[in-house]
């Protein structure tokens, strides 16, 4: 019988409920930040900087609304 982890009969703690959940937003935000700063170095092609900024904004939002 399959039991989903949200409906547990007993009060037992599982590893998944005690460990902090994984997330990809930290590495995505870090990469976006790096891209933005590389964009500052390569300001002769400002598109890189602006793509980086866009990704940073998306990452902030994604991080914020992520369900934990």
């Amino acid at each position, binding site marked *: 019988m399959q039991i989903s982890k949200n409906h547990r009969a007993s009060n037992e703690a599982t590893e998944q409920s005690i*460990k902090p*959940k*994984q997330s*990809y937003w930290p590495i995505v935000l870090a990469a976006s*930040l790096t891209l933005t*700063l590389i964009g500052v*170095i390569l300001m002769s092609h400002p598109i890189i900087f602006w793509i980086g900024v866009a990704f940073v904004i998306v990452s902030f939002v994604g991080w914020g609304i992520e369900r934990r």
Partner: protein
Amino acid sequence: MATRTITEGVSIARRRRLSETYIGDWLMTTDHKKLGIMYMVTGFFFFLVGGVDALLIRTQLAQPNGKVLSPDVYNQIFTMHAITMIFLFVMPMLTGLGNYIVPLMIGARDMAFPRLNAFGYWVVLFGGLFLTSSFLFGAAPNVGWFAYAPLTELSGAGTTSCGNAVLCTPGPNMDFWALGILMLGISSIAGSINFVVTILKLRAPGMTINRMPLFTWMTLITAFLLLFSLPSVSMASILILLDRHLGTHFYVAGFGGDPLLWQHLFWSFGHPEVYILILPAFGIISEVLPVFSRKPIFGYTFIAWSGVAIGFLSFTVWAHHMFAVGLPLVAQAFFATSTTLIAIPTAVKIFNWLGTTWGGKLSFKPPMLFALGFIAMFLIGGLNGAALAIVPFDYQVTDTYFVVAHLHYVLFGGTVFGIFAGIFYWFPKITGKLLNERLAQVQFWLMLIGVNLTFFPMHILGLLGMPRRIYTYPDKLGWNEMNLIATIGAFTLGVAILVFIWNFVVTLRSGEAAGTDPWDAFTLEWDTESPPKPYNFLEIPTVRSRRPFYDKKNPETADWKSMTH
């Protein structure tokens, strides 16, 4: 209450998510132990990079009129040596150790902000790669790690290009510096917020501030120092970027700016930074010495609060890096006073560590070797540092190899020895294996000899008039022998590190199993499996003294029975 158990989750047959693959697990992890390991591995990698920089420098300086490195390459390498060692080795390494150990020490299941923790790590990795990649463009920062203006400006004052004399820094070298520092600052701020909240809010029941381990104390103070000092250098970096790219003149005299503004802003960060580099090492020593002396740390309260005093005072001493710039004498006297003052809590710590070993039962396992070596070498760094506070003497030796001697005695003889003490101490907890003792002894003696061979002659070179940051020096000035000795010492240190790497590899492959408590230690992190389970503790313990694990193992002579804390 029924017995607590923690079970593995129910698994359902389906395609593996990214987070369940080996790589995906590491890329998406928010677990403080995994991130601690990642920080430390990254830090150690950059230690090797910075070490190669150092060996290149010493090869160039082994003889007068060296031709190993051109001046341009040399200037990039000595700049990057410092930046790599400070920002990409020591800080990540100490953050990593703190990340792994502090939650365990305080009886927590993880840090307060797990995603922020991961973010801090990835920024260090990407920032470090970004900064180091500058070498590939031939444009690594080449203005010294302290990057004084107006050398870092884009063009000479009043002109739009630098001409042949390379008056300033026309290439992106300085942009790499500023952006790299901004990135690494962001990482440290994220990490510091995490440490402050974790330590203040997630301690186990009964663990008051006055009962938490000293490594945790020092990490907390360090986190506050980072939070209050990083804004200074971040601001300075932004201002130089504005000067270079948007035509402002914050640091250019003749347009209303002042080169000294940079120095004040930089050293307002730079001085707390050096305490950031040493305080966690003080914490490690304060953990190791008691365990290997079989008695508690002597003067816990004094060590803890002298750390706090150092933290506060570190914001009052910055201009002792600027005694020669022409500040009014009264200002110099103020900074001489504050610098003298900060020597006192540091001395108190050394005496308390000696008090810990006094009357103890000392065993010289590898962590203890490095802890004792730390005391011996840091003392020298403290003495020559106190000498630099004596302003008229400083006028002679500032910006000479005397200062290079000082900073390396405290950073290598101090922090690096402290880091190795921590590595040897906690390696069995992290991996479940014991590093080889014989190899550790070889490494220790090579390092002790190497540090003194490399850096003691630099005191003499400074007294004999050799300036810092010169890519070569002439013959017949009496500097040749000391430089050669220093180079030999540097390669000795290189061999010592190779011995460590060998030890590390061999132990991971076939090392002796460590068990949960190989050192019969006192603090909570040892009351777990080796390595600890993902959830750290089956039950969060209740703490009644400063040595909760000692109490558990020795209920008749437990600390809480005799102490009122």
